[in-house]
Every structure is written in C-alpha cells, then in structure tokens.
C-alpha cells in the first residue's frame, strides 16, 4: 500500500479524515480549557491579593 493509497482510504478519505480532525480538535479543547481556566483562577486570585495588600 502506498502512502497516497493510505490517505485515500479507499475513497472514503473525506469522511475518515474529517472524523479524525474533529475528534482531535474536541480532545485538544478538552485538555486546553481546564489548563487555561486554572491559570485564570490563579491570576485573578493573585490580583485580588495585591489589591488587598494595597488597601491595608
């Protein structure tokens, strides 16, 4: 089997690779979203901390 044949997927290339692509996007989003959320929570808390220290 050549590489081109593999990517052609017996004529079903569009369906197969769209499925893989969408799955990859959704899985990546699932990993990145909590990482970003964690950074945001900690940054918000650090900002609150600095503000409180200034008020004292």
């Amino acid at each position, binding site marked *: 089997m050549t590489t081109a044949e593999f990517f052609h997927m017996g004529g079903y290339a569009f369906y197969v690779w769209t499925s893989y692509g969408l799955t990859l996007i959704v899985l990546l989003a*699932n990993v990145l979203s909590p990482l970003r959320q964690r950074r945001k929570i*900690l940054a918000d808390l*650090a900002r609150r901390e600095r503000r409180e220290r200034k008020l004292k």
Partner: protein
Amino acid sequence: MILSGSGSGGGAIRAVTTASAPIGASFTFLALVTGSLWGKPMWGTWWVWDARLTSELILLFLYIGFIALQGAIEDRRTAARAGAVLLLVGVINIPIIHYSVEWWNTLHQGPTVTKFDAPSIDVRMLIPLLLMAVAFKLFYAVVVLMRARCEILQRERNTQWVRQLAGES
C-alpha cells in the same frame, strides 16, 4: 442526596459531577458527528430520525441543559441540587439509548458487541474498538481530574493554601 453534595465528601462528588458534564457533551457531540460522517457513505444519509440517533441527540441536549442550569444559578449549592434532579431525569435516557436498537426496528443496526452471543463484529474491528473505548475512558479520567481541580480551587479560594498557590504563580 449524594449528588447534590450536602453531606460530607459531597463536595468532591459535586466537583466531579460538574466537571464531567462538558466532557460528556463533547463525547456525545463526537458520537453524533462522526456517526453522521459514517452514515453518509454507508446508509446514504447524514441523519434520520431513528430511535438510536434521536435518543443520542436528546442525551446531548440533556448535557447542554445541565451545563446551562449550573451556569444560571448563582449559589453553588442550589445549582448542584437542581443539577442533581436533572441528572436523575437524564439517567432514564441511558437504557432507552441502549435498547433503542432492539425496541424500534429502524435504520440503525442491532447490537454487535454488547450481547449474549459472541460479538458479531469482525475481530479486526473489535480490537481497535475496545482499545479506543479504554483510551477514551482514560482520557475522561485525566480531564475530569483537571476540571475538578479548577472547581476545588474556585471553592477554596479563601483558604490559605490557595492564596499561597496564587502568590507563587
């Protein structure tokens, strides 16, 4: 009520429940979309209002409803309680999805793996299928912990250890 997390240790369960919803919604979305992408060349149609497909779509709406409900209620305890009630209603859908291909004879094929006889699926498809099923469950375990960690950080934001953690970042 365990799911609303009013007892001791309920907080952890609540964090996991809240963290699970978006992952469940993503997986259901993928099942519907990739199923549709498979259906077009194999059945000749993207979508039919078949029992399995429809009950799976209802599952997606239940997940979205759960997430929206949690977001709409300000008080976390009340949100968890309301979510738990929706969850109990939503669970009814699970056996309906499972048996839909037996109860209604529509386009979707009958079960090929979860039945009493030997699976009728070809072994060359069964092995990657089971492997991926395990892989997705492990992926769920990782992401649910990542999300639950954020939930706990939010809830414990006034404690010393979270303040310290925020100070270090």
